[in-house]
């Protein structure tokens, strides 16, 4: 058998997604606003479904409503809609109980842009 250990350390440039990534790393939800139709996307769409390629960036409140969720050995995840966004996004849930229906974006560990929600109540505490 050939035993080969390969360690890869990527340094990824976010490119056009830089504002979104910067926001996530600070726990701030930054949405992409379509210049033509005003559609607000989080996670951002570079080209809007209306076909417009121009857009700007704007902060959202960071509050999100759980649409549906899944739980198991792979973790606790959900489809959520951020307040002010017109689309939905897959998020990781941390500390959510059965009755928690809303959450707020959390600062992720490390320098990896992760979309993690904490339950709204515990965050307020």
């Amino acid at each position, binding site marked *: *058998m050939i035993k*080969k250990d*390969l360690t890869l350390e990527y340094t*990824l440039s*976010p490119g056009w*997604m830089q504002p979104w*990534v910067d926001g996530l790393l600070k726990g701030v939800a930054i949405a992409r606003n379509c210049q033509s139709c005003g559609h607000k*996307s989080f*996670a951002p*769409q570079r080209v809007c479904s209306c076909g417009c390629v121009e857009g700007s960036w704007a902060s959202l409140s960071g509050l999100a409503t759980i649409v*549906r*969720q*899944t*739980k*198991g*050995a*792979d*973790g606790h*995840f*959900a*489809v959520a809609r951020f307040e002010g966004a017109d*689309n*939905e*996004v*897959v*998020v*990781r849930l941390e500390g959510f109980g059965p009755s928690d229906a809303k959450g707020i974006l959390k600062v992720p560990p490390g320098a*990896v*842009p*992760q*979309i*993690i929600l904490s339950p709204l109540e515990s965050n307020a505490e």
Partner: protein
Amino acid sequence: MVAILGAAMTKFDRRKDGSSFRDWAFEAFELALDRSQIDRSDIDFLIVASESDFFTLQLNPSSILSSDLGLGNTPSVRVEGGGASGQLAVHAGVNAVLSRQARHIAVVGVDPSASQLSGDTIRSLYGYSFDAWTDGMTGATSTVLYALSAQVFMERHRIDESHLNQITIQNRSNAMANSFAHLGRKHSVSEIVGSPVIASPYRRLHCSPLSDGAAAIILSAEDAVPNRRRSAPRIVGVGAANDNPRLGNREDQGHFGAKTKAMKKACSMADIAPKDIGLAEVYDAFAGAQSQALFALGLSHEIRRETADGRFSPSGELPVNLSGGLLVQGAPVGATGVAQVVNCALFLEGRNASKLQPSTPPSHALADTHGGVCTNSAITILAQPDAA
């Protein structure tokens, strides 16, 4: 029309016998070539399907395999389209024949998705099959994303875990007749519901295994089919379409919309309707994905009742995944879509080694593959030569 002169695959398995993906590709290719009844020197194009260099630790695998397969100066190319890599490679072959770029093409799909890296590493890599910068970085696995999509479909069609269990049991039963299948035993309902929840509603036994293996077909232009292979099945329709890779950006997260579009294209090219399909190998990476596929393909309009009534069982009106599908035959990604075509071709020709080989093969069969959560869909329709 494009003829499938030869079709073969290795057993899908977690190989621990010291063989490599290069051996598996060779084994599948040699058998397909033998069945094609043409010479190695007749092959004028090699198309390799392999999803990831992470699996093989081989960049430019098509050149290596071209050499290993003894194809000399034959041009080669590698096709990648996530889980749909194999089927898209078949499409590339069909397009090359129809555009007269080549007359005899070898399509070889291969991936070592089980034995070369740990299961956790493979599953982590699969997590980057979607949008790596959103879903991937957040840690959402393939099972998580499929589960979130399945929930929408299940609610809409009023199906529950018993439906998932029935599909799992049926496909496992089918695979018992297939000596090339990865998993070799049946499971009871109690074993399925006793297996751990990976991402609700999916339990471990509702998920396809990580497999090693290869599959190969030899395609031929119609005017280059040797007389002794006039009975070879034909590819009469191909169709592909994409959906948004991010589930949250889709208007309908439970519907595999790309399949509907791809099926329409494939049926249009084949000049048939979905009702004409008599046998199907569909992409069941997870139990619920099979039903999502059948509905999106227009092969079922009442998925709950038709599944319960056995319409998709071996004796039903439309046998589905006689091979056992990805759920049980296995899923070495690059090989998966090619193997679906291999199974369909051999079933149509009446020479599939499965004990479920229909005594009277249907006129048309369908192979359906996708990457992501049906982000990119690829469909191939095969036909008996007299129906083509």
